[in-house]
């Protein structure tokens, strides 16, 4: 009973810790310019207006940045699943020399700070002519999202009993047919979750996006560069628009993220 109370208290504190800033952000974004500078702050919005948001979307370059963000995130999503799912399948099903080492190596890619890689990447991207394109950013984001895509999809494929696949083989399927008819339908919801997670990783990433683009900014990079010179309510609106999709997506796939952490514990 006492431990339950403790857990409940901690959960409430954690929720407040996360929710209050989001709430204030929302109040400011919907409150119109006056509310932002008003003091003392009221916790309830005195009036609701879309004035600030309208202003935000009216700024030149915002729409382009949003479209870039979506494009980059979509590319990241597709590439990380196309590369990550086969790797995850291999980790789940095959025994090969260096398997544990490979698993570790996958995580190790996260150990290289982007800040160190930024310069060589910029030089290379300029050389091959994809600097300042969504593709360049998406490639880097794919590298960031890939470890998760591999480990989560490997745990998903492990969750599909091997016997189901073997039964399909004995009933006349090739390896590929068995995958398509049996493994894929069972793993699909989780794969969708993995893709959404990759989307969110890309959507939130700011450093690589800032370094690798000049004009074709993603939303995060755009907001970062224009923050200092923009009015306060613009920042609030941008902030809100940044976190809301990420929040919704992560909430939708939270069940599968646990399975990812499950495998990290193993």
């Amino acid at each position: 009973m006492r431990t339950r109370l403790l857990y409940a208290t901690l959960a409430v504190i954690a929720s407040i810790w996360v929710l209050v800033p989001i709430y204030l952000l929302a109040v400011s974004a919907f409150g119109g310019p006056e509310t932002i500078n008003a003091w003392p702050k009221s916790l309830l919005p005195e009036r609701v207006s879309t004035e600030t948001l309208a202003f935000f979307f009216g700024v030149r370059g915002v729409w382009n940045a949003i479209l870039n963000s979506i494009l980059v995130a979509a590319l990241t999503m597709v590439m990380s699943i196309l590369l990550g799912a086969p790797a995850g399948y291999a980790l789940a099903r095959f025994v090969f020399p260096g398997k544990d080492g490979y698993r570790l190596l996958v995580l190790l890619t996260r150990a290289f700070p982007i800040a160190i890689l930024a310069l060589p990447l910029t030089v290379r991207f300029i050389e091959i002519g994809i600097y300042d394109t969504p593709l360049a950013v998406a490639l880097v984001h794919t590298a960031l999202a890939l470890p998760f895509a591999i480990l989560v999809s490997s745990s998903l494929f492990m969750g599909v009993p091997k016997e189901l696949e073997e039964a399909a083989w004995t009933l006349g399927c090739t390896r590929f047919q068995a995958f398509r008819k049996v493994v894929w339908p069972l793993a699909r919801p989780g794969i969708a979750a993995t893709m959404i997670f990759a989307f969110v990783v890309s959507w939130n990433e700011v450093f690589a996006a800032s370094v690798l683009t000049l004009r074709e900014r993603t939303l995060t990079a755009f907001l970062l560069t224009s923050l200092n010179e923009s009015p306060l309510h613009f920042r609030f609106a941008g902030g809100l628009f940044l976190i809301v999709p990420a929040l919704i997506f992560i909430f939708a796939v939270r069940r599968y993220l646990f399975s990812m952490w499950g495998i990290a514990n193993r």
Partner: protein
Amino acid sequence: MARILVRDIKKTFGKFVALKSVSMEVADGEFTVLLGPSGCGKTTLLRIIAGLETADRGEVWIGERRIDRLPPRARNIAMVFQNYAVFPHMTVFDNIAFGLRMQKRGSEEEIRRTVEWAAELVHIESQLEKYTGQLSGGQRQRVAVARALAVRPQVLLMDEPLSNLDALLRLEMRAELKTILRECATTTIYVTHDQVEAMSLADRIAIMHGGEIEQYDTPLEIYRNPATLFCGGFIGSPPMNFLEAERVAPGRYRVGGLELEGPRDAGPKLLLGIRPEDLEPVADGGAALAGSVLVVEPLGSHLLATLRLDGRLLRFAGDADLPLHPGETLRLRPRADRLRWFDPESERAVRS
């Protein structure tokens, strides 16, 4: 339908030798059980025949076709797995139809008829529209059996299909399986570690131990004439008794207080194997094995008693009405025609 021929199969996993050199032949339409404790290689052998595992060397033939290089789908086999392996995202109907559709066996209409035939055979015809997640373990295993039989395989492979069911259901399914499989007359290899299951189902049993087949014979023959100590101890509940025997003259061996007729050309020390029910109480004062009764188990149909004899335990099965009490001395004599002799070194039977 076809015979199965397995020749000189060897399989290692890293340093572990799963199969040493296994050869066996299963006749057309025969029901063979691979029986042995876990780790004896029985499942590995089955999976090699199915093509789910590759042997290090050796050949597998089905009928006149050598199949050990073929993928599972080309071997004309079907398999039933221990954990059923029915597809959870499909209805019972689609599960049973899966193999037929993958192998393009006729029109949808013909497939429907085959599915209904198979479903009726295992008594799940009323569940065809359900998803397998809604079924009990026993029903799922029925689906798995129907799915395997629907493709009319030359060879049916079953890997401990009943071991995930509870005891009562297992008995019921065992009897039913026997009827179903007799009706289909498909050559079948069935893996289990349950000797009662093996005895009740098999035409022939292959007893496996340490990656080798120790004996391959009819259930009764294995029970009566075990080829090795292991076979005698593994088949039968309670298992065969083994008593030390010492040669007193050529062909004469002393066991406890008894002198018995033994094999003529054998070593000075042997083991006498005798089934608990082949021991008979001795009423008169003649020579006998005299042991003190430790435990009496009245089982209704018969009675089991455990005796201590020269520091070793001896199991005796006798008439249910026998007045036996712990602490008493029981004098027993083995039936002369049921004496089995074993070499303690090689652990193999010595024919007398």
